């Protein structure tokens, strides 16, 4: 038990550093694996759970997804759009809008170190987006740029176990100081069998519930667990965003050059 404790405190300390390099992260991971191995029953430390979630989410080397997105406002008005998402590792993501027609080709590229670019086909120009934007909503959705761009939970949050039920670990995640995240905390329900979050509650700075994300319809595609129906509901503005994944392809060895400004313009 003391080992687990030490791992947990180590994890906390590590997360407070300016950045965890891939190297130190893998050390943490090694210790975690060790810790898990020495455990008697299935009880997992919060950091282990979170790491497992992140690992599950980032298991494929790359992923290409076509999805439809429905935005529903408080009055029930709907807007539909189609997009494709190209993802490689944790840090590289390219989002391309395919419809409606007047925004077809608008692209969004997120790279390491909060680098973000937008491409507007009507102007044939790429523009960098300041990192401040990451806490703003992305293109009319209820996801922030940050929600869309990354899944670095271990790096950005300190977890604690709020509750463990038969099927779920309920984690409470508090953002680390240097993460620049505008949520005051997250509550995450992690499914014990898939190690994927079924539901995440986002709380705003004053501590009020802001958004609820639910992920359902988990399918195994190319050996990876992938939720196909993702809903984000802003309970304050009564606005919803629903994403339905259509084509999901993994591990196509997408080259790094696909995630450049040059390719952002290619459409």
């Amino acid at each position, binding site marked *: 038990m003391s080992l687990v404790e030490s791992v947990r405190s180590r994890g906390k300390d590590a997360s407070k550093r300016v950045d965890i390099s891939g190297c130190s992260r893998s050390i943490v991971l090694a210790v975690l694996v060790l810790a898990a191995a020495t455990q008697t029953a299935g009880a997992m430390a919060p950091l282990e759970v979170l790491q497992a979630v992140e690992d599950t989410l980032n298991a494929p080397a790359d992923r290409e997804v076509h999805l439809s997105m429905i*935005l529903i406002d408080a009055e029930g008005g709907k807007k539909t759009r189609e997009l494709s998402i190209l993802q490689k590792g944790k840090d590289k993501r390219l989002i391309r809008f395919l419809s409606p027609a007047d925004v077809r080709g608008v692209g969004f590229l997120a790279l390491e170190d909060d680098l973000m670019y937008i491409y507007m086909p*009507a102007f044939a120009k790429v523009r960098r987006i300041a990192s401040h934007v990451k806490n703003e909503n992305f293109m009319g959705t209820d996801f922030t740029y940050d929600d869309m761009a990354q899944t670095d939970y271990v790096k950005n949050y300190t977890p604690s176990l709020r509750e463990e039920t038969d099927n779920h670990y309920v984690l409470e995640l508090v953002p680390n100081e240097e993460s620049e995240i505008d949520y005051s905390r997250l509550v995450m329900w992690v499914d014990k069998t898939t190690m994927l979050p079924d539901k995440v509650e986002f709380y705003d700075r004053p501590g009020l519930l802001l958004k609820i994300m639910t992920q359902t319809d988990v399918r195994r595609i190319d050996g990876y667990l992938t939720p196909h129906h993702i809903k984000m509901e802003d309970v304050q503005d009564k606005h919803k965003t629903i994403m339905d994944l259509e084509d999901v392809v993994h591990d196509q060895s997408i080259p790094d050059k696909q995630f450049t400004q040059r390719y952002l313009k290619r459409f």
Partner: protein
Amino acid sequence: MTKLAYWIVRNRLPLLIGVTLLTIFFAYQLTKLRIDSDVLNYLPQDDPVVQLFREVGDKYGGSSLAVVALETEDVFKPRTLARIDSLTTRFHDLPEISQVTSLTDVLDIKKIPDGIEVGKLISSSGIPQTPEDLRALREYTLSKEMYRGNIVSADGRTTLLVARVRDGVDKTEVATKMREIVESMSGEETIYYGGIPFQMLFLTDIITRDLVRLVPLVALLLAAVLFFSFHRLQGVLLPLGAVLVSTIWTLGLMRWVGLDLTIVTAAIPVLLIAIGSAYGIHLLSTYKETEGPDGDKLDHIRRSIAAIGLPIILTGVTTMVGFLAFLFSYLTMTREFGIFASLGVLLAMALSITLIPAILSYLPSQRPRMKAEEQRSNWVTRVMDVIADLVLAHEKLIVVGGLLVVAGSLVAIPQLQREVNMKDYFKPDSKIRQAEEMMEASFGGAIPIQILVNGDIKDPLVLKEMFRFEKYLRTIPNLTHPQSVADLIAELNEQMFGRRAIPDTREGVANLWFFVEGNEVMNQLVADNDTQAMIQAKIGTVNTARLIAVVDSIDHHLATAAPPQLLWLNLDTLPTLVRREAESRRAADVARVVVLDAEHHGVEGLNFDEVLLAVTAAGSASDHRLTTEQTEIVSGAIVDYFGSDAADLPIDSDSIVSDVVTGLEPLFADSLPGEASIGAVLRERVPPSAYADDPEAMEYAASALRGIVREYRRTVCVDGLTDNLIGMATHVPEAAARSFRTDIQGDMWALVEDHAGVASESIPPAMLSQLSATDPVATTTLQTGMPIIFKRLDRSVVQSQAASLVAAFLVLFILLAVRFRSFTGGLISLTPVVATVLCNFILMAVLGIPLDVVTVLIGSVAGGIGIDYTIHFLARFQKEFKEGTSERDALRVTLETTGKAIIINATAVAVGFLVLILGDIVPMQRFGFLIAATMVTSALGAITLLPALVLLTKARFIGEFDRVAKRLNHNLGGLRISTRRRP
């Protein structure tokens, strides 16, 4: 009447019990009475103007703004910013508030190197702490027209938190909550509260305070007057009790039918106490005359009722008529006032002839104490005699005086001002008024005005039209800070691509729009699936006349400057003639906008014709030859392109890049080259290894290079035109120089765009059929907002005034004509009150008192009350005259008896109304003062103008003047004969 008297006496016990029970019931209702100070509720809800206003409020998250201002030495300090931030958050958490705009919650679009930052001006987590950061933030914020004078005053001392209050919620309650939040967070900043919700809250407060203070005061005053007249407790308690009970019933009944007190109906208690007591007084004094230890008390009561009942009812009915005239008013609250004030009068009248006798019957009889009163009345009697002499000697002069009043009013009435704004309800030194004045001075006011645009809002033509319209709005005096989605798009375009203009393609608009989609601010700017947009501006005046001038000039512009039906087309696809026509239309539009921009920024020396000439003379952006210097700039841009991550062809060697540039220079220096010729140069000079694995790269590169050249050529053209125009200006204010340049530059971009509006009739029919996919752009524009409501109120004030006066005087005329069985009688008896109303208008014009929702009531009310004096006077005069005395004697007797009573009564009522002056609601103060004045004038009119007219016209309804004339012949010179009657 006798029957009624018997009935009252017979049923006195059940009557007393019934009145007591009803009073308890209505007193209970009274405790639930609330004050409704929402101007919008005062208006008829089926009026389309009101409906549109509500609809807009519903769609755009509310149409009223609650404003909290913080004033300190410099708002850009961490503590103040933190306070603003927590206030913003807490306001935002109130469910009744749809949106809060403040320094820490406002959309900011900022240019950064190679990119853009769209986010909050100051985020909660990013309040700067160091002096340098704070200074930079202050400088940046004050440099933007979006913020300066809009959420921060130009001197950086005051900042606003503007909360949009949802429609259909209790605005007073929201304002209370907001005030509690502010007060719970202490700070060094001075706080101001402004906007309709806070005005309503303060109004509710002072209405309540006035009621609590003034009603007891009037009651006390009435008690004093009663004691002065009757010298005994029952003389005080009975009439006072009757009016208090009738007041409780009236207000209780109001609540019972579900109405709240408004600023107008709040006057009912004071009003009823002041005028309703007269009925009780008349009954008691009649009773007193016959009262004594001897005889049957019940018989005395019966006789009193029989004697005075009818006159009480008649005067009561005329007063009611004065109030009921408000049924013709447009304003709901005025109609309510009319109904319940007349109901109150009815109740006071009914209770005076029922309740008072019923109670009297249980009280022991008292000896009359005549002596003291007798002595006191002597001097009044003498004054009356002097008046009688005056009337008799100068009857013509008095009538001439009356005519002068008519003439004076003809001059005065057109001078009357009107004021319907709520700000005017408060005293100049009140907090809310000071807040409004601060807001006007530093922030261009807090009254929003909205213009709705219906159409396909994402169409560039529609947005351009809106943008142009806003530029016009900026030139209207007293109107500031127009904002719409068009500004937002232009702002994004400026920060991203350096041009403050609407892009000329639908995709261009949509791409930028997409970037801010879903942002909170969009909910206030567009609705109905982007088929309706709102332009909002602020009005920097609360003066009704100036407010209406703003509304009218907008309406006028909307009506006259409506664009023809245009097709938004690419000019390259058009026949030369059509193209020329479209270009000259575009040039004229641009020239007009330049003139508007110049006007807004205070730039002088730019007139339409010269500007038009300048913009037409400019050549095409793609044809002219670049100078050596310009060619170098383009070459530099191409080198930069190859060096950037976005380069489509990866070339690592500097020498290859410079080789490519050398090859391209001759092409782009002369004109805009095609992609094919650029591609040829590239293929010739770039080694195939650079694009071997990516064959498309070559095409992308050619297209990008052409884009760079095209962009530069257009920029040169735009900048040249801009410089030229600024050179033409004779004066450019220094402070505005930068914004003016940005605006003009944005205007010039329209001249180099591919698309322009083309009138559908100028396109050849054959071509038009091919263009069928493109429909002409149709928009409709509507204006709404509080100023329109004020305009409506203003018009209604005039209409209400006219309608209620006509109605009141018509009914009064009929009543009087019937009463005196004479058409002339009706006319003559109406003259004193008509003169009174005219005098009132003269007084208002002289003192600069405006007509408002309350002062508009004075005419009819004064008519209804003042006519009583005429009735009393004429009745007595007629009686005396018919009994055979000369008209002179009759006049004297009438003046000494009824005349005296009239003066006492009028004084009592006037003093009662004067109490309103002590209140805090300005229109109520004016109402109190003016009604008091009308009481005096109508009483004076009744005892001077009325007899003068009767004497002059020898009106037959009074009696046979000839008969008296014959008798008088014996008695000439008797004008000065004293016929003082001794009682």
